């Protein structure tokens, strides 16, 4: 969770922010918004209003410019999430490869539905659209890592590993 007093990127992340802003011409720092929202989410797990206000301040934007962007793109979590956010692909090609059965198994194993977080706060499950890995489906993603050619057995192994 976040609160206003503690919202401040660590020094090395702030360096990264300034480096990103330099990628664009003078006065076009708004272009840094998506990359910096990714950094913010990596830091605080989700984009709370306080986090978005902080990002707005960094880029000299009005808060609404950040809210309207964060709410447009599906990767930004606007609600608290668990430690591991499992985002599974629900689109056609993954379904052809048995995705529905694998994802049903995943949800049953964790005892939650799509969009929910386990009581211990470890896992959140979200369904997403095509992850551009169709030939290696079914697929889910946890942060930047892809888990491909999933089977119910592989799902069990992954969950057990991450539960440790």
């Amino acid at each position, binding site marked *: 969770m976040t609160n206003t007093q503690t919202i401040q990127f660590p020094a090395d992340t702030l360096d990264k922010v300034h480096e990103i802003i330099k990628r664009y011409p003078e006065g076009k720092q708004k272009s840094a918004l998506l990359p910096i929202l990714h950094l913010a989410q990596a830091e605080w797990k989700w984009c709370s209003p306080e986090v978005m206000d902080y990002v707005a301040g960094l880029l000299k934007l009005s808060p609404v410019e950040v809210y309207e962007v964060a709410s447009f793109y599906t990767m930004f979590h606007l609600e608290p999430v668990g430690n591991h956010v499992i985002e599974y692909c629900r689109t*056609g090609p993954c379904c052809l490869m048995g995705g529905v059965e694998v994802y049903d198994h995943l949800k049953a194993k964790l005892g939650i539905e799509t969009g929910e977080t386990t009581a211990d706060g470890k896992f959140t499950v979200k369904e997403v659209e095509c992850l551009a890995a169709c030939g290696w489906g079914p697929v889910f993603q946890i942060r930047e890592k892809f888990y491909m050619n999933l089977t119910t057995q592989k799902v069990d192994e992954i969950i057990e590993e991450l539960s440790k």
Partner: protein
Amino acid sequence: MKILTEHIDVQGIETIDVFRKHGGYTAVEKALKKMTPDEVTEEVKKSGLRGRGGAGFPMGMKWSFLAKPEGVPRYLVCNADESEPGTFKDHYLMMKSPHTLIEGMIVSSYALGANTSYIYIRGELMYVATILEKAIQEAKDKGLLGKNILGSGYDLELHVQLGGGAYICGEETALLESLEGKRGNPRNKPPFPAVKGLWQCPTVVNNVESIAATSWIVNNGGDEYAKIGIGRSTGTKLISVSGHVRKPGVYELPLGLSVEDFIYSDDWCGGIRDGHKLKAVVAGGSSVPILPAELILKTANGENRLMTYESLSDGGFVSGTMLGSGGFVVMDERTCIVHNTLTFGRFYHHESCGQCSPCREGTGWMDKVLYRIEHGKGRQEDIDLLVDVAKKIEGNTICPLGDAAAWPVAAAIRHFRDEFEWHINHPEKATQKGAVFMREGASWSM
């Protein structure tokens, strides 16, 4: 014949030293030291290379539209927002051989006179962005990026930009909005990006695969490139294969290969897995019309269907489809077309930016109606309702997402109407698991 993936399985090809050992960056040397920017553009024009993101627009012609007012910066933006269901070729190419794209970016930026270029990559491919950034740093360290590249006097800065998860940002003006830090709402055209693009400056947006191909064209000449392929389908194409084939994956093929060879030959997809039969193919990503087995293998005139822009579209939408982005989704006889169409309908509903009413409302309606047919709650009039909604979206929106949403639904009904009727007439069976097995005498049985 491979020009993009010849060395893709070489150990260490992601590093600049190994990449150079296999001929990498010779196109940069040649272009920057021996050619003028216009000469590079001329070769790309001669090559006949068509945009590999899906639209198939001639790349050299697109470059020639770029406005060049004095004192105004120009930009090249690489579209790496690969999100079309069934398509994962750019993901594969960038992940395995990042320098292939970076070399093409340098050559193409030089041709266009851009001194700052961006690779806009979908946010989900964060790990690929890291691979690209590492490769960019390597290129910089070798003097292939930055100031005065190889002593030529040409400067180029190259940056990777992460998206945030939105299919619509693959549309070039939505991509530019997103790169400006805004919601990905497509712009009304004109003006086109070639005149007013990124920050209102002249901009070219090209797909990863298109840009990557320019290095080979510089090295070997546009005429040589044009010798590969058939007619106006020149060169090679990366095809992403998913679904029920024995060997899914990414293949680079010379345009002109027959669809039958591509699906059944052991050199390519290796046939349908587990002894099943081919039922249908979506040949160019989820947006293009699905075709039943008999029409994907042969045109309505009985000619062999080829992997070219022209042959795949032979027969228009009555009996043909499109090459699109090359997302080749293969379905065997056990596949429920209604369910597959629902996943596509749901996809476009989710991905519509909401700017144009026909798309925002229409994709929602199609999703809901498809859902109730699939779940045994369909009504007799629903099939015609879907066709009607699809017609009212098509051609009535700012960007092509509306068409992309309408076509797969219309085509599924055109070729597999009996399956939709069966779902409506047998609600109790349609909702059972594996329902598609229970049907007898359906028109698609082979």
